């Protein structure tokens, strides 16, 4: 049953391209598809965030090959393509949001840089820096007053310079102040997310505005030609001081007519802004942090993947429509518009490499990727109308094409939804019957209870004595891998690796006390020198911190000609003390004489 369904799934998509060595590490927000040269050949533009050791780059793929590469100055938060003007040929611009700037590229050449307007700096803070510059106050005083200011207005309200200063190591503070007190202080915000909004026409190639979410809790709508701020919408109320930072933005409608911007925020709220509003309205408070979001253009319903492994759908008024529990945590999400079936699917990539396609709440298709997909986008690529582009966490690029003939089974009801009720009640518990033997034995127990109890108690006392004797013997022979109460709180465990005749022994020591340090100890091995030779018969152990496991290794060679094995005693000894602290006996494995045969 399941395997058949899988086959059916597979037939809908063609594997167009797989490059496991693309080494592009990115997220959905940094991928876009655009007809860069206005020749009908759509390119894939992707910002490669790199691995940390490699540089951040803007890469353009033409078909399956890398077309061009541009180095970026900083890590980008979003890449979008949009039409700036009506000039012919209709070539779209690429906007890369990075730090507090938005870089516009046209024809893949730098075209314009837009910086977010700087914000007001607290007058007291400005004053303080001025005084330092004129050497009216000491650096220590500046630090103290800035700290007070921080407590008063909050860290986020300070300028970048002050924020950096407060985070400095005390030794580097004077040089930092020396270096930066000449620079005029600025407070600048950072772009968190970016999207586009059509300006006046709903045409595919119509001019679009940029919609930018900022760290200061604002949404800005920018004019595409003059780069002036057309709208400025605050996400939080004027009076409340807590910032609400947008994490994912989605905008639709026309700027000149009517538009809606939905923002999923970092505090888990879903907020709506419309034309003419200066403040956003809370739609709904989500139960968990948002991962990715899409808004359906038809009925403005919001589908959002959350961090609690669910996919939830809200109506445009913020009413919860449905919840689907995902089999794993969601990594990315993208809409898949299917005009020929007049519907829009939602593709959700899950942790582990599974990709699920939902039509509403109904699962219609499953795609398997070799790794978790972190970046996912669907649209025109090359000459192909419906391409699904996936970037996995290990940097490989996969392109799948939806077959022209593909027809998703949208009507088939999901079988899992109609579970027969009462299945749980029908499971039989396997409880064995009480046997006759059991009853007989119970009778015996009842008849002889006094005798049995006496025997048991007598044996128990005898056992206690035996155990105590054995314990004393173990203590005297120091045959204990863990210390008893009152002694050094050390634990020893040993492991022998290898097939022989050369073995490696790993001794792990752990200080199991809460706070005492242990020092001046060593590990000593006691063995038959006719059987074994050891690389380090004594290991000096440095200080042992509580709770940390310290492994020590040594090589042991079996030098006996017969294939015999022996025991090795490991002892933990203290300097100037004849009795070992701990000891353990290790049964050495027989060595496989494969090499000797």
């Amino acid at each position, binding site marked *: 049953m399941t395997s058949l369904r899988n086959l059916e799934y597979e037939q809908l998509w063609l594997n167009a391209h797989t490059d496991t060595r693309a080494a592009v590490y990115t997220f959905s927000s940094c991928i876009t598809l655009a007809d860069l040269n206005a020749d009908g050949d759509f390119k894939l533009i992707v910002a490669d965030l790199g691995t940390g050791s490699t540089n951040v780059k803007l890469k353009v793929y033409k078909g399956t090959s890398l077309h061009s590469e541009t180095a970026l100055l900083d890590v980008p938060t979003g890449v979008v393509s949009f039409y700036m003007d009506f000039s012919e040929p209709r070539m779209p611009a690429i906007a890369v949001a990075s730090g507090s700037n938005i870089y516009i590229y046209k024809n893949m050449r730098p075209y314009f840089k837009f910086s977010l307007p700087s914000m007001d700096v607290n007058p007291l803070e400005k004053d303080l820096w001025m005084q330092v510059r004129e050497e009216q106050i000491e650096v220590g005083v500046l630090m103290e007053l800035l700290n007070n200011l921080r407590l008063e207005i909050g860290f986020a309200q300070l300028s970048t310079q002050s924020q950096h200063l407060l985070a400095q190591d005390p030794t580097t503070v004077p040089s930092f102040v020396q270096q930066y007190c000449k620079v005029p202080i600025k407070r600048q915000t950072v772009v968190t997310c970016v999207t586009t909004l059509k300006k006046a026409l709903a045409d595919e190639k119509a001019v679009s505005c940029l919609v930018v979410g900022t760290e200061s809790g604002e949404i800005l709508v920018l004019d595409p030609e003059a780069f002036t701020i057309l709208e400025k919408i605050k996400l939080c109320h004027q009076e409340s001081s807590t910032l609400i930072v947008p994490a994912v933005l989605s905008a639709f409608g026309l700027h000149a007519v009517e538009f809606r911007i939905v923002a999923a925020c970092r*505090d888990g709220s879903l907020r709506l802004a419309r034309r003419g509003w200066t403040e956003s309205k809370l739609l709904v*408070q*989500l*139960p*968990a942090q948002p991962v990715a979001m899409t808004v359906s253009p038809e009925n403005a319903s919001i589908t959002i993947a959350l*961090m*609690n*492994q669910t996919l939830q759908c809200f109506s445009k008024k913020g009413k919860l429509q449905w919840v689907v529990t995902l089999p794993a945590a969601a990594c990315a999400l993208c809409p898949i518009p299917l005009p020929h079936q007049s519907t829009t699917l939602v593709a959700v990539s899950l942790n582990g490499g599974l990709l699920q396609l939902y039509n509403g709440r109904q699962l219609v298709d499953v795609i398997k990727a070799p790794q978790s997909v972190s970046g996912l986008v669907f649209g025109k690529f090359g000459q192909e109308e419906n391409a699904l582009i996936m970037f996995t966490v290990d940097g490989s690029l996969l392109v799948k094409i939806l077959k022209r003939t593909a027809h998703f089974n949208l009507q088939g009801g999901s079988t899992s939804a109609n579970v027969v009720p009462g299945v749980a009640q029908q499971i039989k518990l*396997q*409880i*064995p019957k009480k*046997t006759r*033997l*059991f009853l007989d*034995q119970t009778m*015996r*127990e009842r008849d002889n209870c006094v*005798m*049995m*109890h006496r*025997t*048991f108690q007598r*044996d*128990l006392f*005898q*056992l*206690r004595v*035996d*155990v105590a004797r*054995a*314990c004393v013997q*173990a203590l005297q022979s120091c*045959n*204990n*891998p*863990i210390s*008893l109460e009152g002694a050094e*709180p050390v*634990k*020893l*465990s*040993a*492991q022998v*690796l290898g*097939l022989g005749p050369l073995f490696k022994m790993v001794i792990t020591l*752990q200080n*199991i*006390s809460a706070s005492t340090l242990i020092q001046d100890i060593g590990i000593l091995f006691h063995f038959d020198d006719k059987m074994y030779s050891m690389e380090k018969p004594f290991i000096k152990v440095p200080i042992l911190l*509580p709770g940390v496991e310290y492994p020590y290794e040594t090589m042991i060679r079996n030098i006996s000609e017969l*294939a015999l*094995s022996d025991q090795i005693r490991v002892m933990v000894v203290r300097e100037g003390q004849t009795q070992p602290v701990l000891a353990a*006996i*290790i*049964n*050495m*494995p027989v060595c*496989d004489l*494969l090499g*000797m*045969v």
Partner: protein
Amino acid sequence: MDPIFLALSLYKKRCFEECVSTCTELLDKNPFDQAVWVLKMKALTEQLYVDDLEAEEEGIAEAFMDNETIAESARPGTSLKNPGTSQGGSTQGYRPWTQTGRPVSGVIRPGTQTARPGTMEQALRTPRTSKTARPSTSQSARTIRLGTASMLSEPGGPFIQLSRINLGNYAAKPALAKPLFLYILYHENNIRHALQLAVLATQACEFKDWWWKVQLGKCYYSLGLMREAEQQFRSALRQHQCIETFLRLGRVYIRLDQPLSALDVCRTGLEYFPKEVTLLTEIARIFEGLNNMTMSVKYYREIVTEDSTNVEAIACIGMHHFYTDQPEMALRFYRRLLQMGLYNAELFNNLGLCCFYAQQYDMTLSCFQHALSLAKDDDVADIWYNIGLIAIGVGDTRLAGQCLRLAISSDSGHAPAYNNLGVLELRKGRMNEARAFFQAAASLAPYLFEPYFNHSALSHKIGDLQASYIVIQKALEAYPNHIPSQELLHTLEKHFTII
């Protein structure tokens, strides 16, 4: 007395060494006496013959460099590799697992230790003492040591110089070829030469002798050529049905990890030899390997009706009853073993446990004391551990702690003892010690879910949610259906996703 008759008589009395020396004297007088030559060869072979069906063990190399595997993840209940997947099988919840990731079995056989571990490292890390180690390949020194004397030099050179012998001459003479083959296989353990001889001999008898086909199959099997071995055994079975051939064909399928085909073969065998104990034992073992204990016990019961002194069957049924909450039945089976004359530490240990759980308290501790007095070095740790369990049951935590420490001092790798010590420390409120013990248990035995679960619950209690989350996932890896672990994970996930 005629010296040849004397040698024959010695051979029949199984006095092989004297027989060999008599034969050597005779051969010194007349080196071309073929009868004496054959007799000496047979005596030498008998001296070192091992039941290779029982002593067979799959090596690490065979388990990993396995090029016969068809499916990476087989369907549940069709593979010996993942016994946890069978439905209705026992789980770790009520039947503990051994260090190779299988439920404990009633008897220890080479097969019960050869579960296929997930990784090479895990296979190499399992405590490899002289009793538990796996050979690196099935053709390693151990089998040679078990089966041959060729390691020890013989005075005056080896009896037969294999490299000088002309195998073609002997192949045509069945009376000489068969003992010579067995000598090469068991005494010299030279499979290449044995195979060469077998091939020549089969050709000489025009592929009509089923015995040679079985021997060919044996050689192919030990060389790891499973499909060729299967072909030979099948061909032999068409000519002549023999229990050994059925068993060997079954083993081929087990090596190919097709236990269901192996079961089919054994059932076909049972049609020719109804109620044959060795075949029934094989079937019961395969079901045990598939973790289908109900079927396994059904076949063991059949064995007991045929052979009421079969130790393996009685022990396995007893173990099954013990872990299905009927200790009084288990007690009866183990008592039967005692009556049969078995007298060892393991048996007394099991009897003690059965008595305790069947509420026959007067016998419990005396059984354990017997067990302690009989115990050898390698099982004394288990006995101390079980006495520790009794002490916990009685409520004497101090005694329990002492017993568990004794278990650890006699076997420093006894993971369940570390785990229980951790729980005792936790009861005393000493978190650091408890955590150290849980960590030790988990590093010694990653197949146990209890240390992980306890560690996670401890971390959760003291508020270290991150550690708790990481550790509980390992617990669920070891035992995916453990409900308390699932609940803990669920609570933790709620903690993490809630705003």
